[in-house]
């Protein structure tokens, strides 16, 4: 039954600097306390940041990187879920998705070295380097293993924020962490996609309902330059930044999967079609020359928004 007081529904949007970017959370018709729902959603994002930051010395990730090669380390349920998903993606993508590329990112100056850390070779690790044990415990089979959830944790944070809104009875909302976003509710919302070669332009609009969308591109830092430069996506086969595509946008049921798949598609290009299908995902690729290709399942969502 539709609420009789639909005219009282209002939209509340707030933005805060979190996860190294701007996180915007919006809620519509959140009952008497939309601000409380949004506050809970921001809290969920902050908690993911605390648990999964590579930089914070007390995070689960830092504890794993320090000691998981020596003994099993028990982590928060959320951290365990993200790492388990990352391992599954690693397997299904034939090793292309790899959270153990932190040494390569350190070598490129994209991640800091840890205090007292040993220099580890930047070579990719074997697929079984991360061992998932019962009781949310994780062990590394290699002393050289260093993980970074930068390619996946932001999407997970967006999902947790969306859950928090839902838990407060919000039936329509959006969580957007610097371009990785999830729409809550069956009311369709339009999301515009930036041109990765020229972030001042939008290339298309995509209609989303209860879905997530994530994008990645060669690195874009508008504070330093409007030009796009090298990507922070590392191809484990070469240990160098992936550069065949200018940018990728992925739609998936969850932002965790959408976020992770952007990295895989950035490396695999059109060959990622099967993997996208396995995760019920669709993608838009832009090649360096501006050519755009989309999966058929995105075509309707794009056309509806155009």
């Amino acid at each position, binding site marked *: 039954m539709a609420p009789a007081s639909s005219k009282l529904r209002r939209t509340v949007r707030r933005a805060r600097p979190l996860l190294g*970017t701007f996180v915007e959370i919006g809620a519509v018709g959140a009952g008497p306390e939309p601000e409380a729902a949004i506050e809970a959603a921001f809290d969920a994002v902050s908690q993911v940041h605390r648990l999964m930051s590579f930089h914070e010395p007390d995070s689960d990730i830092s504890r794993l990187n320090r000691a998981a090669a020596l003994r099993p380390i028990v982590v928060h349920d959320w951290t365990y879920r993200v790492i388990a998903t990352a391992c599954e993606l690693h397997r299904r993508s034939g090793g292309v998705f790899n959270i153990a590329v932190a040494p390569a990112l350190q070598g490129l100056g994209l991640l800091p070295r840890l205090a007292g850390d040993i220099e580890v070779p930047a070579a990719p690790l074997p697929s079984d380097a991360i061992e998932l044990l019962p009781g949310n415990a994780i062990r590394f089979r290699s002393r050289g293993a260093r993980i970074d959830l930068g390619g996946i944790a932001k999407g997970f944070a967006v999902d947790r924020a969306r859950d928090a809104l839902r838990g407060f009875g919000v039936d329509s909302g959006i969580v957007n962490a610097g371009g990785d976003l999830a729409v809550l509710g069956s009311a369709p919302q339009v*999301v515009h996609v930036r041109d990765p070669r020229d972030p001042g332009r939008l290339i298309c*609009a995509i209609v989303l309902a209860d879905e997530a969308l994530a994008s990645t591109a060669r690195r874009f830092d508008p504070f330093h330059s409007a030009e796009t430069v090298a990507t922070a996506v590392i191809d484990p086969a070469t240990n160098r930044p992936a550069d065949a595509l200018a940018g990728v946008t992925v739609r998936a049921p969850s932002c965790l999967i959408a976020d992770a798949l952007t990295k895989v598609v950035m490396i695999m290009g059109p060959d990622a079609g099967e993997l996208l*299908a396995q995760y019920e995902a669709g993608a838009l690729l832009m090649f360096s020359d501006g050519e*755009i290709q989309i999966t058929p399942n995105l075509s309707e969502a794009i056309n509806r928004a155009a």
Partner: protein
Amino acid sequence: MTQWIRYTLPVAAVITAASPALALRYLSIEEAQKAAFPQAHFTEVQAGRVWKAEAGGKVAGFFVFDRVIGKHLYIDYAVALTPAGAVHSVQILEYRESYGGDVRSPSWLSQFNGKTSASPLKINGDIRNISGATLSSTHITEGVKRILATYGARLK
């Protein structure tokens, strides 16, 4: 084998993001003050910039308004400080995006108005959900550090 479809941009879809529609307004200064210290009343300590929040005869904290100007982004934000000068909360008040004189079609928004004005797809009448390369919030982080260094230990 998954088929890929070549996607040709409709001319009207190639629009620039450099428009007032990307001046995203979240909170006025007054609203942000109320959000940071719900029960307090505010006294201006430094015109247009610093307010003291008091509730029940006691100092609840301080509210500092600031603006970060990057090369392309102008962001108004506010830092609420505890009485001891620690960060209580950071809120974005207004987020603008401009690419200088790069507005290719000043009336570009009108091409969308007719299509979406009566539709549930429209959000606050603006294009405001954007997916793309992540924007760095480094300048806000630097701004908060600057505010702490400037006011953290000095406000009483």
